[in-house]
């Protein structure tokens, strides 16, 4: 830092003749300092040449663009307000970055503006916030954003569609789980009763049913179809329906229960209670 300060003084001609002589003498005797100084000199010269080149390019560019192109680069004018309005300066509404720079609410004439909104902040603070809120988008970026407009629209549509699909899946999944819960409740509620009723009889399929209802379905179906006794029709029919319910095959269970009701109806009123029970299960799973 000390050397940089000395180098600065030297290149800006701020050293006295004596100091300058001393500096040159040091450069001759201290090779490290000499290398450092020449590197510094090259850097400063490079910066200045680059800046000069930028100046030339800007002058040429401004001479060669049209006024319309310049206006396009600058963008639309902001709404102005009278000068010397001190409230005006601080009242920039913090909206999202794309809009807040262009939204200006003049609350200077309002009496009910909260102090925390209407209070003045420092100019530097305002300017920094404002400049940060409205970064200048280069022409190339503006052009690129136009090109990607359609792309972003597609992304938005895809996002909305994805949200809808997810919501739909969640609802369907919830409904499926609810139906399965109802099935399990029905199965547990009636299974024991029917097993109790059937105990003591010669019902080979029931043993299989007790261990695994799904495996008992073919045997139960066969027994139910071939049964001609109302007791057998009722027991095999209900067990078959419950086995289907356990497997969440409601359509099949429904068909079995309807058949069961039809086949037991001729034995009414003795089997009215069973018919009513089947009807209740049927209503629950429909």
């Amino acid at each position, binding site marked *: 830092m000390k050397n940089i300060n000395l180098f600065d003084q030297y290149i800006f001609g701020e050293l006295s003749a004596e100091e300058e002589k001393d500096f040159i003498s040091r450069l001759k005797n201290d090779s490290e300092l000499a290398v450092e100084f020449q590197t510094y000199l090259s850097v400063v010269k490079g910066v200045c040449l680059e800046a000069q080149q930028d100046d030339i390019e800007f002058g040429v560019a401004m001479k060669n663009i049209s006024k319309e*192109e310049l206006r396009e680069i600058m963008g639309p004018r902001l709404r102005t307000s009278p000068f010397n309005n001190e409230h005006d300066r601080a009242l920039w509404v913090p909206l999202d970055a794309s809009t807040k720079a262009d939204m200006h609410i003049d609350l200077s004439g309002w009496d009910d503006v909260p102090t925390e909104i209407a209070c003045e902040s420092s100019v530097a603070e305002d300017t920094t916030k404002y400049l940060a809120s409205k970064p200048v988008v280069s022409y190339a970026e503006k052009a690129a954003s136009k090109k990607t407009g359609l792309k972003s629209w597609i992304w938005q549509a895809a996002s909305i569609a994805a949200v809808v699909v997810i919501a739909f899946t969640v609802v369907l999944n919830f409904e499926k789980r609810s139906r399965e819960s109802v099935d399990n409740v029905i199965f547990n509620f009636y299974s024991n009763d029917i097993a109790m009723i059937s105990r003591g009889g010669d019902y080979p399929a029931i043993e299989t049913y007790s261990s695994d209802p799904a495996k008992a379905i073919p045997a139960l179906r066969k027994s139910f179809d071939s049964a001609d006794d109302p007791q057998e029709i009722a027991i095999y029919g209900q067990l078959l329906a419950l086995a289907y319910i356990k497997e969440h095959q409601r359509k099949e269970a429904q068909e079995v229960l309807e058949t069961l009701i039809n086949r037991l109806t001729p034995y009414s009123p003795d089997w009215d209670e069973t018919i009513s029970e089947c009807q209740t299960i049927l209503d629950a799973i429909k």
Partner: protein
Amino acid sequence: MPINFKDVTDQWYAKMRMPFMSSLTKRFPNLTLADAENIYQDTFLAIYENLEAGRIKDGTSWYSYIMTIGYNIACKSMRHAGITDSYDIPVDTGENNATLDRINSIEKRLQEEDLTIFDNPQADAVLAEELTRTPEPCATIIRLFYYERLPLAEIADAIGFNSARSVQSRRWQCVKNLISPVKAALQRAGIID
């Protein structure tokens, strides 16, 4: 590669906005940000018209010119004096050329004293490569200090620093950070030991 005039103008418009707005609102505390933004646009339009009318010399330092035109427009607006047809920069100091002239004379003296350590196109290429990597705000600070010869207080206003002292310490750091990699690159290239 041919210059894309619109891109160059666009880059300048974006680059100058921050220092312009910061300096203007600091100098004119009653100016609204919307007005400052519009003055910035008016400044570029005025420059365009002045260039068209041939009122601007070649080799003008655009930073100083843009700032001065901006101050003039702001002053006139604040006085409610209305907008005139053109805004001319009052004094062209030519300070930036003075820095380059001074460096050239120093280089000449170093040659005379046989103190030149490196002077070849390869060193220039290494330097140019390193300069393009200078991050902000260092690039702006170094440019405003060495090329534009702005006082530290004005640089502080332009880049939003609180004081000249913070700019000074940051500048030292920036120059140091720029010299070190340049020196290392020159050593790697075998230009210096």
